[in-house]
């Protein structure tokens, strides 16, 4: 069985697993290598490239960055498949023709869909043996038809992948739930950063109007009222808040552009697993 992972999945599996103790980094579960022992993780060159450009985004310290960078060049590089370029190109073109919106969007998901097709048609991978792992719901929607029609395999989320691993005894069911909680934390980082900044700022000496506007921003962020947040950002008092804290404007900006759908999908998934997934520990 092949698992082909998108960039975000690999980043999450590493970052959520990262442990920092006394300034030393390590991976607590080392999911990728444990999966690789029983199954085959493969990625096309494009994913490796994306990985090198994005791995540091959510990492805070130099040590963490160095550790992950090392890990990528030491282990992840072994998953990279140096594809036959002309065969891969023809798969890529096919996906582009059937999915016109990707013609001008040369991203990892596109390459993974093409790669699944390439493995099945040009290499000797059997039908239903290549599973695409992504948490990007847009990509899931875009490619699930192609995967089904071409008998390639399934499209699974990161949590699905880990649940599957729990069936094979590679990790425990409780560890999957623990991972899910940590992934949720990761996905809600932008939200938490803004909320925390407001809380810290509220403890300082502010005028009632500044404090009032910050509370309003807090509530609008909590309610995901994006339109109201835009209005808050242009409020006359906001200029004064910015003078006291330069960071707050950026954090609101990040919040406004962040896609929180992933958190909501994940929350739904967690509750589905808790209620409908059969696990021996529930018996």
């Amino acid at each position, binding site marked *: 069985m092949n698992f082909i992972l998108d960039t975000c999945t690999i980043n999450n599996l590493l970052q959520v697993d990262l442990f920092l103790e006394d300034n030393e980094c390590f991976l607590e579960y080392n999911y990728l290598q444990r999966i690789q022992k029983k199954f085959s993780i493969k990625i096309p060159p494009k994913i490796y490239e994306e990985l090198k450009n994005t791995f540091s985004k959510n990492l805070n310290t130099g040590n963490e960055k160095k550790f992950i960078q090392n890990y990528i060049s030491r282990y992840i590089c072994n998953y990279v498949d140096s594809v036959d370029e002309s065969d891969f190109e023809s798969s890529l073109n096919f996906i582009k023709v059937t999915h016109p919106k990707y013609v001008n969007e040369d991203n990892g998901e596109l390459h993974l869909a093409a790669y699944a097709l390439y493995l099945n048609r040009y290499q000797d991978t059997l039908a239903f043996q290549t599973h695409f792992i992504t948490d990007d719901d847009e990509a899931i929607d875009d490619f699930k038809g192609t995967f089904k029609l071409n008998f390639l395999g399934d499209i699974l989320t990161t949590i699905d992948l880990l649940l599957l691993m729990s069936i094979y005894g590679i990790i425990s069911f409780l560890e999957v739930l623990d991972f899910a*909680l940590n992934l949720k*934390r990761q*996905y809600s980082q932008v*939200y938490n950063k803004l909320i925390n900044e407001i809380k810290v700022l509220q403890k300082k000496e502010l005028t009632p109007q500044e*404090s*009032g506007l910050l*509370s*309003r921003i807090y509530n609008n962020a909590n309610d995901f009222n994006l339109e109201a947040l835009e209005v808050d950002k242009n*409020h006359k008092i906001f200029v004064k808040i910015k003078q006291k804290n330069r960071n707050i404007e950026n954090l609101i900006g990040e919040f406004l552009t962040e896609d929180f759908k992933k958190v909501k999908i994940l929350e739904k998934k967690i509750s589905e697993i808790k209620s409908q997934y059969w696990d021996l520990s529930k018996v």
Partner: protein
Amino acid sequence: MTYEKLGLKENPFRLTPPLIQSEIVWAGMNEVKTNIENRIKIAILTKASRIVLNWGSYGSGKTHASLYYSKTNRLQEIVDENKASSAKSIKITLPRSSNNIVQEFFRSFLGQYSLEDIFLDFQKIKTEFGEETLNLMIDAYSNDKSIADVLKKLIDIESKDSQDFSKLKNYIHGDSTKGTLTSLGLPLGLNNDEQIANLMAAVISCITHEKKIYSTFIIWLDEFEDIDTVNKNLADRFTTFLRQFIDKTSNNLLLFLNFTQKTFMDMEDLSSYLGEALTSRAKAKIDFANPTLDESLIYIKELCENELFKIKGNDSPFDNDETIKYVLENIGNLNARKINESFSIIFEMALIMGKDKITVDFINQITDEIIAWDN
């Protein structure tokens, strides 16, 4: 800015705690107050340690409650009403900035309940129970020989001005240099989470032994919801520590966990962080619900009437209750923070514009300034 024109000494709607913290005021919100005080009463009168979850939205008054019961003499009043020994209450904010989360928590603990205080309280135990019994207590409650040695060192010290005391203080604060250890005759430094749990548990158990010196020890752990923003292994480490500390302090501890609801963190997530053992013990929950319009009205009137703020003999700064209600009806969902902010703005505007009475007409002139005003 002078509030005299409005018949007030200062703004009653404080946005940050006052300099003199014993002057923190509780107004309105009677249901929450009763619930908290019932919990404190149970802790004063019964033995088993308990965890209570304070649950509410941002600005609902959880931190205020922690300060009110830790800094004012209200706790002593409750104790007196129940004819019990004193109670000790401290507020600690969930540590978030340090690499050593347990050490930081312990420092905050010592910041509120210092080694000097502990020393004096242990002197009282000695007087009350005798040195021999105190030694037995220390052995029984420490779970750990080296922690017992530390506490026995403490009770042997003559005065807190002595050199030994300051050495012990350094040790408690994490100094584990050879010189300090040798002169205290202790084998190892205090740098292990479990030992810190043992030390805190032993101190609390001794000073509440038979409810003689203190009837209960209350810790308010504020901003606990931020556990999901602490580095994963630090969060694990902290909850493990908390579990150990609570397991080892089986009597006379009341832990209030303040938890602000966040969109991406629900009760189940909180349980996952706390773990099975703590969740099953945190059965009691106090709901810091948003006040109704009538409750808010009482809150505002009680604050303005409080003798700390009102100049004797003066009338209310509002022409009538309808004016207050008019504001409350127009600022959306109510909570203490929002009310304080909105009414602070109204008072400031009244002072700037030279008004001595707040009327509906005046409010209508300044709605643009009241940030929470619904358009």
